[in-house]
């Protein structure tokens, strides 16, 4: 792995929350992955797996509710967790930017689009208001918003969902960040608009040579966009690899189950696979492997936490029984 191409490295990240009764919620419990320049990595998982918390932790935005209990987040070798709040503020928006799921709530309704983008620009760059406004206009054009100059003076509610998302992307890119974190960027959009936005993100990534962390539960989007995929479950990474590794050679039962249970456009399945049970309560994670209560390959050894094993070139899995994954092909998930 070429070290000089490495943009972001997350190592053994732990983020814990504490509720009213003082109980500990291990939202993220030892998560690690790496991102290279110009590459897209996807954090995939369902609600409660910790993917959103991970992204907020990278920007150190969890400090009010939770505590980062351990690990390292290295941006081009610099550990973000050791920075002061002031230094971190310079990183946010300038080096690492984020776009969110709901553009309506991420944009302030009482300020114009222009004002919000200009605010982002002026925060990190020494430009006059006039220069910043010109830059903002260019950005809106860059993200494909027609009549950009007019739009600068419009309010969020005057824009459609797709336009708002583009405006948010413009804001995030205003300082040419090295890393873009996209948290469910298209989940609330219609599928035809989704296609537009994903193409836009890909194009901009190429132009700016950004690293993109894509957070989503939509495996279709992942297959189309991400070079590397990190599958998360209940606060832990269960499998990590290239998209071909994950989609064509999954080695973790959860990954396998997920791929076989989602409805697909290209194939009509008589009966979809079912992963029995539900995602465990974060206050009460099972001991050992957190997936074991729902796993058909479970046995006594699963009471100990699985360690990381390399299947082949940079394809990693955290499972005691990964070599028996073919069993699932015949038996499915019936236990």
């Amino acid at each position, binding site marked *: 792995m070429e070290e000089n191409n490495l943009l972001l490295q997350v190592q053994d990240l732990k983020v814990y929350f504490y509720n009213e009764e003082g109980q500990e919620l291990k939202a993220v419990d030892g998560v690690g992955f790496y991102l290279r320049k110009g590459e897209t990595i996807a954090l995939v998982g369902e609600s409660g797996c910790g993917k959103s918390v991970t992204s907020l932790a990278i920007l150190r935005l969890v400090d009010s509710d939770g505590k980062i209990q351990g690990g390292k987040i290295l941006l081009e070798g610099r550990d973000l967790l050791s920075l002061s709040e002031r230094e971190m503020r310079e990183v946010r928006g300038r080096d690492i930017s984020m776009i969110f799921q709901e553009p309506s709530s991420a944009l302030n309704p009482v300020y114009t689009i222009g004002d919000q983008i200009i605010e982002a620009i002026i925060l990190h760059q020494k430009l006059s208001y006039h220069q910043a406004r010109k830059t903002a206009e260019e950005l809106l054009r860059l993200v494909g918003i027609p009549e950009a100059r007019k739009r600068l003076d419009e309010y969020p509610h005057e824009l459609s969902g797709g336009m708002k998302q583009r405006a948010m992307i413009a804001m995030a890119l205003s300082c040419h960040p090295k890393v873009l974190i996209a948290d469910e960027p298209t989940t609330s959009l219609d599928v035809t608009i989704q296609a537009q936005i*994903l193409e836009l993100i890909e194009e901009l990534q190429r132009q700016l040579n950004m690293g993109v962390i894509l957070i989503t539960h939509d495996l*279709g989007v992942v297959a*189309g966009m991400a070079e590397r995929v990190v599958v998360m479950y209940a606060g832990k990474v269960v499998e990590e690899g290239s998209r071909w590794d994950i989609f064509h050679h999954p080695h973790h039962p959860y990954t396998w189950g997920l791929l076989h249970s989602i409805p697909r456009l290209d194939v009509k399945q008589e009966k979809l696979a079912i992963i029995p049970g539900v995602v465990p309560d974060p206050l009460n994670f099972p001991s050992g492997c957190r997936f074991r209560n729902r796993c058909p390959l479970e046995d006594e050894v699963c009471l100990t936490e699985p360690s990381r094993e390399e299947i082949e070139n940079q394809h990693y899995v955290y499972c005691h029984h990964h070599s028996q994954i073919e069993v699932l092909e015949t038996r499915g998930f019936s236990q």
Partner: protein
Amino acid sequence: MNNVPLLQVEDLKKYFPIKAGVFRRTVGWVKAVDGVSFEVFPEETLGIVGESGCGKSTLGMTVMRLYEPTAGSIFFQGEDISSLPASQLKGVRRNIQMIFQDPFTSLDPRMHIGSIVEEGMKVHRVASPPEVRRRALDLLEKVGLGAEYFSRYPHEFSGGQRQRIGIARALALNPRLVVADEPVSSLDVSVRSQILNLLKDLKREYQLTYIFISHDLAVVRQICDRVIVMYLGKVVEIADGDTFFSSPSHPYSVALTSAVPVPDPDYEVKRIILSGDVPSPINPPEGCRFHTRCPVAQEVCSQVEPALEEVGENQWAACHFPGSLSWERA
């Protein structure tokens, strides 16, 4: 499948008034459903697809008369239910039920789930109280929730379980037709297959007919026999499931199916990207409503509204140039 339709909708319209000013005068109309006609046959699953604002949810509510139709007719088992007075509507309600989209708000948080399932039966006085209870327990078991859950409250359940409760409630009255409005959209990905399989099993067991409203084409592919595509309040295509997904005819259907991502890195498609945004349903475009975004639109499309015509076996499209757009796997 016999050929007598269970439900027949003719030129159904639902407009919502826009009121403004001190005297709340009507200044315009949101034409959510603007002249929709189709049929539903017994024991089929008919999918109604479209993106936000196309009117599919409004259509579902209007068919159930949870919204009052502005114009048009609805025939259920041959009887015109669109103009039935409220007193007679109650009888119809036993035969058409609904599964709602949001499992978090479609159950009364202050009622325990046993009562929720029993309520319909009690209101229609279907049976004696002990019998009603027995049936409720039976239904909950059928959807995978044992008797010990009977007295629990909705907030104690997960989204998937709540949706099951909603399904049990819908089936309590033994309806013939069930309108499912985005039943899995709010659920976690790994839970969706559970609910979809459940719906399929129940359909077989109770000989149900489904109208399945969804924006998720992949889900529709799995569960629907026939598909109706809506755009801006109108039907643009009707086709059998297999036909629709292999060779859609209307340009919008083509764009829609090409845009759906598939979980396979080798699946490459030259996506047809539509320009612009969906126009407002207050002022739909002249002529064909889709012409402003259509990659193959011609002059006639902005002047004359196309009618729904048969373009293939069991395939209808409302387009002047059906089949002129297609997509291919790269």
